[in-house]
């Protein structure tokens, strides 16, 4: 008993309460999203909000269990978790169930489980474990290749399940590498590659190249004008030219048709409001029509009359925007950003490198979901089907985020036990 009380004493209530608030807000909005006057009890187990309540209760149970586990357990068995996740990802390719085009679900009784959600935890643990090792020098190419391998393995398996959205999430762990000391240049390169691709798709390529050429020249003139610098800049510029012109080819060659359309929709090249642009347009209408105060709980017409597709899962933020307006949306965004800040704050105070880097991993994964999901509903990011943490309907994702977060809370409370 003494030990248990100790655990609850030392957990960070800030994070725990933010978690609870987000989960409950999510539940209320799922209720609004699938609300039907004939089945209006929020406890109706046939409806999604009833089910979500069960997932929430189960996730609280999971959280409790995690808090009771020994603090060393997760760092010790990090690779094992990772390994199990990889095995599950392989298994699901062969024996999984296909739901809306993605073969990424295990059917366990009445519950559909998605290993990809849990693989994010495995990857975060493995990265933290590997970089937490004091012998590892992130400046070495071998280390970087290993890290790339840790990320690419689950990513490839997830892509094989036709779930590109989930694969992108693993990339977020690059922030962990960065915090662990990866060089600025490499980080810059890793940021520049996708950024350049976006610019190449979104704006006139020639203008882009002119801008790059001018900025390169200005940069060179501002330095000591060594030949070596000049050669580097020229090399970078040539590489950029090749890259910029191959982006379109890459998009056409490697992306699936629906992904290509989503990108075209985002950049306004395809405004088929009845086809691919429908979701985003209806999502914007829902959020935009919320105004400052919102239409009120259960009053959202876009939500209530099913104009927004996937409104309890990927497009749950529409319900927030429509029914709670600017004020409610602002609150939700503020809650998320506060949560991220708190996690980073906690991570920085960790004594063990594993815990610290794992904390960064948690923040990075949650942040990327947040950025892509809300960005998508606001028409700022192409439609990528990943959930909004704690909000979106679904057992797998809620449980995975809960486990992800509570492992960190447990690590944080474990600090005291190390004294």
């Amino acid at each position, binding site marked *: 008993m003494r030990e248990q009380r100790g655990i609850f004493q030392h957990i960070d209530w800030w994070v725990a309460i933010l978690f609870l608030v987000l989960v409950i807000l999510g539940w209320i909005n799922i209720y609004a999203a699938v609300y039907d006057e004939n089945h209006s009890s929020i406890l109706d187990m046939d409806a999604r909000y009833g089910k979500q309540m069960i997932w929430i209760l189960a996730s609280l149970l999971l959280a409790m269990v995690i808090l009771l586990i020994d603090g060393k357990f997760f760092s010790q068995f990090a690779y094992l978790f990772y390994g199990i996740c990889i095995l599950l990802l392989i298994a699901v390719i062969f024996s999984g169930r296909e739901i809306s085009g993605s073969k990424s679900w295990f059917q366990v009784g009445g519950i559909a489980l998605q290993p990809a959600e849990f693989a994010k935890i495995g990857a975060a643990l493995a990265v933290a474990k590997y970089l937490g090792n004091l012998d590892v020098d992130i400046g070495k190419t071998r280390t970087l290749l290993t890290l790339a391998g840790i990320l690419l393995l689950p990513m490839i398996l997830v892509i094989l399940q036709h779930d590109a959205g989930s694969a992108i999430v693993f990339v977020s762990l690059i*922030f962990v590498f*960065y*915090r662990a*000391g990866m060089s600025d240049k490499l980080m810059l390169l890793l940021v520049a590659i996708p950024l350049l691709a976006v610019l190449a798709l979104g704006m006139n390529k020639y203008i882009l190249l002119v801008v790059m050429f001018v900025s390169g020249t200005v940069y060179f003139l501002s330095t000591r004008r060594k030949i070596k610098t000049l050669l580097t800049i020229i090399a970078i510029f040539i590489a950029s030219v090749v890259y910029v012109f191959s982006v379109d080819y890459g998009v056409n060659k490697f992306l699936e048709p629906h992904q290509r359309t989503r990108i075209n929709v985002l950049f306004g090249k395809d405004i088929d409001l009845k086809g691919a642009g429908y979701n985003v*347009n*209806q999502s*914007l*209408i*829902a*959020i*935009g*029509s*919320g*105004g*400052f105060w919102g239409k009120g709980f259960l009053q959202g*017409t*876009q939500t*209530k*009359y*099913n*104009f927004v597709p996937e409104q309890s899962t990927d497009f749950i933020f529409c319900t927030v*925007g*429509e029914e709670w*307006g*600017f004020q409610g*949306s*602002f609150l939700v*965004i*503020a809650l*998320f*950003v506060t949560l*991220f*800040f708190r996690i*980073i704050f906690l991570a*920085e105070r960790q004594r063990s490198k594993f815990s610290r880097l794992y904390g*960064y991993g948690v*923040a990075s994964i949650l*942040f990327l979901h*947040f*950025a892509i999901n*809300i*960005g998508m509903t*606001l028409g*700022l990011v192409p439609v990528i089907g990943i959930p909004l943490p704690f909000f979106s309907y679904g057992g797998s994702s809620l449980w995975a985020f809960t486990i992800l977060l509570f492992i960190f809370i447990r690590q944080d409370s474990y600090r005291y036990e190390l004294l």
Partner: protein
Amino acid sequence: MKLVNSNRKIIILGLFVLIGLVFIIRLFTIQIIADRYVLSANNNVLRYITQWPARGLIYDRFGKLLVYNEAAYDLMVTPRQVKTLDTTELCQLIGIEKEDFIERMKKARNYSPYRASLFEAQISRENYGYLEEKIYKFPGFFVQPHPLRKYSFPIAAHTLGYIGEVGPEFILKNTYYRSGDYIGISGIEKSYEELLRGKKGLKIRVVDVFNRDKGSFQNGKYDTTSFSGTDLYSSLDADLQAYGELLMSGKKGSIVAIEPSTGEILCMISSPSYDPNLLVGRARKMNYLKLSEDSVLVPLFNRALMAMYPPGSTFKLVDALVGQQEGVLFPDTRYGCPGGFSLGNGKMVSCHNHWSPLDLRQSIQFSCNTYYCRVFRSIIDKKSFSTTREGFEVWRKHVMSMGFGKKLGVDIPGELNGNIPSSNYYDRYHGKNRWTSMAIISLGIGQGEIGITPVQLANLAALIANRGSYLTPHVIRAIGQKKHLNENYQQNKVSDIDPHYFDIVVAGMHDVVEAGTAASAKIDSIPFCGKTGTAQNPHGKNHSIFVAFAPMNNPKIAISVVVENSGYGATWAAPIASLMIEKYIKRVVKRKDLEQNMINGILLTKSKVVDQ
């Protein structure tokens, strides 16, 4: 190293804040600045259902229904609800080809898979009967009532007018109308549009993404009810109108009859005419095109209000009145007629055979040209006028006070002013003040630049019948259930001519019918007054014109008849007017031979366009 790490922490936190801020700015722009999303959201869920009121009915002066609404039906389709069906059967029911079916389904689907669009417009009541029994076989299709305007008799097309879909330019000007609404385009339908149309109602319903009805919007707070159009009671006598159209068959011209005591138009015939039911429903466009392309008969042209004719000798009545009023003409004024009036340059205005000299009353009876050239000169060149111009202006003022040269204000659109030229016109033509009464002498006998419409001519008959005053001619005598009277048409308009000057003119007009130029038109049982006119014109044979009112005492009907290019006034116009008078007063025409002669008188070749 520590410093680097804390920098990196700040960079990562900065990124979190940056993305958060981007979202908040985006939310601010779409939720607070832009208002189009609110509109789109309303477009998504709100369905505005217009409730069209029944258009007002139109009756004739004896309560006969002239214009009414007949139930017709539009077949609508909601493509998403269409299941597999027997296409052939549906095509047969509404009489279309399978290709049409495919084409229309495609069009409807392009408009919206969830919203109903028009599939087949205006299905007749008979076809609707068959369709209604079978409609259950065609899910996704439903029938929506859409009344059609119907005309009980194939008469009075120009007066009643027609309705059609409102044009896009008009919608911009008048916010009441929406695309697809009907509006009066001509005749009574146009001039009384606001009364006839009633008031549309609007119901706002809420629908879900599948267009399923989810109830009324805010409990019907913004719904409005529709009000039926107002019924109109016209002054037309349907029997007289039909009879007039029969008499005018095969002729170009016009008949206008007015009740002198009220100004109510009893009939208004413009020939050639058309069946108003041609301009109804689906066939309207095609028929309209045919009618409007007929450049020979010009059936859409309302001659009664829009054709200008020289009045010919009928205008001598006006001169007789003006001359007396100006004190230059008296009942015993006699002018000799040597077979014409010499213009002094070797030319002359010729006259026909009659004894000479004639006094005023006889001058009307025998319609002497010389007499009226002299009367006209005596007015213009009266000693008290210092110039020709002054005399002419006085003459013109008197003429215009009798309703000429300007619109009378008939309650049907399109009326023309007619033309009584001004002195400025002659100044331009001859040079300022370089013209004399001799130069414009033809005005005295109703020729020259003068132009009058048939309704103005009928109004002259009414004015003489009333001894100097008239009420603006109108076709609607009462509005709505309370039979409210339009005040505009109750005000007596008084001419410049003193009433006692009319007696001798009336007596002369009586002689015209008894033993004068129109003796052939005499009705034994009805003493009436008339005046013939034979108008020279540049379009061919003379126009045959007649004005009359009857009975002579306490007149019930004043009438003008114009039969274009048919010869003397006494040949066609006078007998037709006489038959019309008999028909109106006695309700039965006994002179069957005369009637048959008039009906059978085909004076124009058939339209080339129609023959094709």
